[in-house]
């Protein structure tokens, strides 16, 4: 094979290759697979990538939504206006990313702020969706940090919804598979950045190695602090092991201001319990019970009716007959 392997992407600001390039996302780059425990250790570790969303640069133009729809060939419904700027009104199986708008009156500065956040999959290092997923191979995580849904293996149960700390996956009513941002894994595979990051007019969305994005974020945080946002900071929540989609927030001390971005997201203990101990212990208990029954069956004497008892029964029935007869007589 002489085909050139596509490079790993370092930016979204690049033009797509037209020459065929072999994918840089190999099966062997998968480090986690849903409902699969024996994923072999990868031979190489890809450079972790990340999308950095700087809400202080975001103008809420929805170019990311537009680019996402076009790249992924989805068909969201034409809805109606319900008195807000969000359209569609929520993430849908056909809308992997959504601008959420919050009108906030800052009690400290008395300034009005229009907080706009691009919502979508965070590509957690410890993905709750993957943990919750019962279908082997329906959710995979690559060593570059991308968490991807593989529709062919998805059974549409919606467990990923329960597993996700960010309320992201949506199950299609028609295809019955769960959908969310892929971080444009097909673009990343040929060295390109995600469509939304490329499109973003104000570069509020950047894409590159996670290291570079963290560095860029610190540059931005410094700028924001110079503008009086003392609590500006990076949102890379460690509760889920960090994310491969991160935010620069002016109010990093209050993420929930931004349309309910979780302050301290983590995989719910309930989900951990359900997918951790409950899964093992439950199965073990059931297995033990079954085994116990079998063993008991084999080794213990069965509870058998004796011929004597059959006789007793006959007597008893006879007896009753007579007594009834007596009474009648």
């Amino acid at each position, binding site marked *: 094979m002489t085909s050139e392997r596509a490079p790993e992407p370092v930016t979204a600001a690049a033009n797509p290759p037209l020459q065929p390039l072999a994918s840089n996302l190999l099966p062997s780059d998968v480090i986690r697979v849903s409902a699969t425990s024996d994923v072999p250790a990868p031979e190489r570790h890809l450079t972790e990538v990340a999308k950095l969303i700087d809400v202080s640069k975001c103008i809420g133009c929805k170019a990311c939504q537009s680019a996402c729809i076009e790249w992924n060939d989805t068909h969201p419904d034409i809805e109606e206006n319900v008195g807000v700027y969000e359209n569609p009104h929520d993430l849908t199986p056909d809308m992997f990313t959504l601008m959420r708008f919050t009108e906030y009156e800052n009690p400290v500065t008395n300034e009005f702020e229009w907080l706009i956040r691009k919502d979508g999959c965070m590509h957690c290092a410890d993905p709750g969706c993957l943990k919750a997923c019962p279908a082997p191979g329906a959710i995979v995580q690559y060593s570059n940090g991308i968490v991807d849904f593989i529709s062919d293996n998805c059974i549409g149960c919606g467990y990923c*919804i*329960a597993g996700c700390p960010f309320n992201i996956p949506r199950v299609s009513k028609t295809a019955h598979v769960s959908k969310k941002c892929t971080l444009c894994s097909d673009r990343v595979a040929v060295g390109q950045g995600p469509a939304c990051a490329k499109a973003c007019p104000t570069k509020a969305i950047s894409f590159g190695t996670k290291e570079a994005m963290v560095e860029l974020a610190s540059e931005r945080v410094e700028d924001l602090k110079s503008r009086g946002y003392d609590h500006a900071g990076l949102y890379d929540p460690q509760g889920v092991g960090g994310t491969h989609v991160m935010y620069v927030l002016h109010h990093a001390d209050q993420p929930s201001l931004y349309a309910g971005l979780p302050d301290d997201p983590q995989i719910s203990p309930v989900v951990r319990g359900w997918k951790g101990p409950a899964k093992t212990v439950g199965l073990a208990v*059931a297995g033990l019970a079954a085994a116990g029954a079998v063993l008991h069956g084999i080794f213990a004497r069965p509870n058998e009716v004796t011929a004597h*008892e059959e006789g007793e029964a006959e007597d*008893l029935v006879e007896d009753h007959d007579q007594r009834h007869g007596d009474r009648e007589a």
Partner: protein
Amino acid sequence: MTEERVYSAPGDKIETKHPVTVNRYRGYTRLNHWVTAACMIVLLISGLSLFHPSLFFLTDIFGGGQTTRWLHPIVGLVLVASFLLLFAQMWKLNLPRREDVEWSRKIGDLLQGNEENLPELGKYNAGQKVVFWGMSGLIVVLVTTGVMIWEQYFPHLVSIPARRIAVAVHSLAAIFTILIFIVHVYAAIWTRGTIRAMTRGTVTGGWAFRHHRKWLRELAGRQRSDPSK
């Protein structure tokens, strides 16, 4: 006039006297039971296949994960309907009675084969009652939580945190259901002569005498009023 039934259900009667065979379950009750049982088995297999990855291969029985995901809740509803019918027929005789306490206390004797030490019982012993009420309760829990996590038709019924609890409770309830199911099946097997009650509908007099004497007594006492005579 008919004497009041205390320990037996309508349809329970002495079938033959020599030897004694006793009608324990009528035809439709047996059908009802087996429909419920079939549903339960499908639910257990499909549920288990989605519960633990090592059992996911079981989805192949139903034609894959998608079908399994679709089938499981539908069968669950069938089970609920079917079980409701069973429940209507059985709940009264499964109400606890004083002798259940003593019976439970002496359950060791039962396992050691000293059943004669146990008190006389009606149609159901305390173990069967536990299975009955356990199943009833668990099915309520399962159907409730099941609907809460039924993505296809009720995606927004409850909040996501509630859904997480629901899915965990559903799993736990399923484990308990499995345990009860095992107890139920195993008891039926271990207690010889039981299964025919749900196949042929009858048990031997000796079986009735040994395990449910009060029930046998009542039936024996009711012979006269039996319209077949």
